[in-house]
């Protein structure tokens, strides 16, 4: 493992915060997986485990007035945005206290105040929504930037191309982040992508591009920040491909038999959490401190679990509520 040792106390504490967020995501999802296996969570549950450094690093480059648009694999992005785990877990449980009041579920986390713009379940469909949010920022002459996450599977659908083209011709303040985890459900990238590196598609739209490995959280942050700053300066969108890996199947119902144990083990050696912890230790943080941090997070997750479990289901009157918004 090639490690970048944090050199000063500021970069140590920064990395420690990133580590905290990544552990929070992992433990949240491990708890969610457990809840799913005992039937407390229904539907699909797509876990982010293994990809934590991408969401945490990317979102670290944003200010609170920037926007995030996510996919059906949205837990990690929401937690990295700073959303409290309790309403997120409650949403998974379909409870009234959920972040989308139980109407959304795993794939549809929304938090308007946090500028967390969903949780979208149609692959690639949200890419032009992100461009639309960025369009609104430009329309209002606000300097907010929108980050849009999607997988490499989304890069083949028309919505990707239309969204990128429109963002490019109008120089919209948006950063498109392709989290390439190498499998679109069970289809490996070599069977789906004519050109393996998604980021080179930026050339087709005269767009800035970048390509990075997604196991080093500070590196992700540094690269994404370049693109965010570019967008904020009015110089248009960037397409970034971040190479990453999901340790679990596509969803909880996928045993992931399309890949080998050797491949999975090789990627697990590049676990971004392990890496960050190793770097923190090299930077002088004692293992006991990190153990304590993990225990504290586990406590927080246990509380979120209990909160979700003890929360009421939505009132039946909610069935018809929200189909239409109140009049202006």
């Amino acid at each position, binding site marked *: 493992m090639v490690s970048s040792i944090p050199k000063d106390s500021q970069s140590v504490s920064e990395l420690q915060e990133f580590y905290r967020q990544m552990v929070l995501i992992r433990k949240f999802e491990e708890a969610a997986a457990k809840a799913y296996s005992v039937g407390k969570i229904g539907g699909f549950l797509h876990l982010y485990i293994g990809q934590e450094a991408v969401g945490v690093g990317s979102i670290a480059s944003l200010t609170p007035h920037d*926007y995030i*648009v996510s996919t059906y694999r949205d837990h990690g992005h929401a937690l990295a945005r700073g959303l409290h785990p309790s309403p997120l877990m409650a949403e998974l449980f379909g409870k009234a206290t*959920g*972040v*989308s*009041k*139980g*109407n*959304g579920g795993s794939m*549809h986390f*929304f*938090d*308007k105040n946090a500028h967390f*713009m*969903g*949780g*979208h*379940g*149609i692959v690639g*469909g*949200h*890419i*032009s*929504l*992100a*461009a*639309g*949010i*960025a*369009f*609104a*920022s430009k*329309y*209002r002459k606000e300097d907010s930037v929108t980050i849009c996450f999607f997988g490499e599977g989304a890069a083949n659908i*028309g*919505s990707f191309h*239309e*969204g990128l*083209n*429109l963002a490019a*011709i109008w120089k919209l303040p948006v950063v498109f982040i392709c989290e390439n985890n190498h499998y679109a459900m069970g289809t490996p990238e070599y069977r789906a992508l004519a050109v393996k590196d998604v980021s080179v598609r930026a050339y087709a739209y005269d767009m800035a591009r970048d390509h990075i490995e997604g196991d080093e959280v500070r590196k992700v942050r540094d690269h994404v920040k370049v693109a965010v700053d570019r967008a904020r300066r009015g110089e248009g969108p960037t397409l970034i491909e971040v190479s990453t890996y999901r340790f679990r199947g596509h969803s909880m119902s996928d045993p992931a038999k399309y890949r080998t144990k050797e491949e999975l083990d090789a990627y697990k050696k590049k676990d971004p959490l392990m890496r960050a912890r190793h770097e923190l230790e090299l930077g002088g943080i004692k293992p006991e401190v990190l153990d304590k941090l993990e225990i504290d997070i586990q406590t927080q997750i246990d509380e979120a679990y209990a909160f979700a479990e003890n929360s009421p289901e939505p009132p039946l009157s909610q069935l018809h*509520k*929200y*189909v*239409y*918004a*109140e*009049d*202006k």
Partner: protein
Amino acid sequence: MAVLTYREALNRAMVEEMEKDPLIYLMGEEVGHYQGAYKVSQGMLDKFGEARVIDTPISENGFAGIGVGSAMVGLRPIIEFMTWNFSLVAIDQIINSAAKMNYMSGGQFPMPIVFRGAGGAGGRLGAQHSQAFESWYAHCPGLKVVCPATPKDAYGLLKSSIRDNNPTIFIESEVLYGSKGEVPEQEYTIPLGLGEIKRKGTDITIVTWSRALSFAEEAAVILEKEGISVEIVDLRSLRPLDENLIYESVKKTNRAIVVEEGWPVAGFGAQISHLIQKNVFSYLDHPVERVTQMDVPMSYAANLERMSLPNANRVADTIREMLR
């Protein structure tokens, strides 16, 4: 009262609303420099500039999504589809994003967006450019569906649609763009969900909307000469639906027929027919009938197109049968 064309009435509604609210913008193919493929946005680029009257490349899915995204953060887009035939490549954004955003977010994201443009069948445009899609959109909760038949209604309904905080499917009739009618000079709106009796009668109720209103009116004139008195209910919007207006009319006439431009199978007329038999069954002297387009894609051949489309004679014939 001024006499305006249907397209002028729509133009006036958009211009007035955009003058009042800077959050409203118009986006679509050829809406700006070309002045609108059907000239509905004539003059608007000069008035509002390129920041608010925005030409797009041909990419319906993309710019529909831009509209939805911008509405999530409070803009009030009017998205023009050159024709509703092309909306099908954007239907994912309309149904999976616009219609559901408020619901699946637990009420966090109202969706003040209007999708509008030319719809309907006819004009020898062939199978891909000649079809009525209101039933598709009326199927989906979360959308409002508006289909005006006159310049006066087009103006008042478009203003209400623009002011509504929900995604509105506003289907204009391509054939009616040049039709003229009186439009009050004073500003007014027509609430969505409010139909209108376009003609009073006692023997049978025709329920209709958009261009099919003209078939109904023609049939009513033909039948009047035969002593048959037809009442015409113009729904104006399918979602929300003015159910009571239909029921009150049927209670009076005891017969109902739905006339629509679209296909029969799973068409909106089937829903109306169901509602009538469910809610005012005891008033009916005859099963509810429907006159629709034939259950085929549109042919280019003039005679086959004529045969496929509903028309006044088919309406009149069906009504004569019902009254026999």
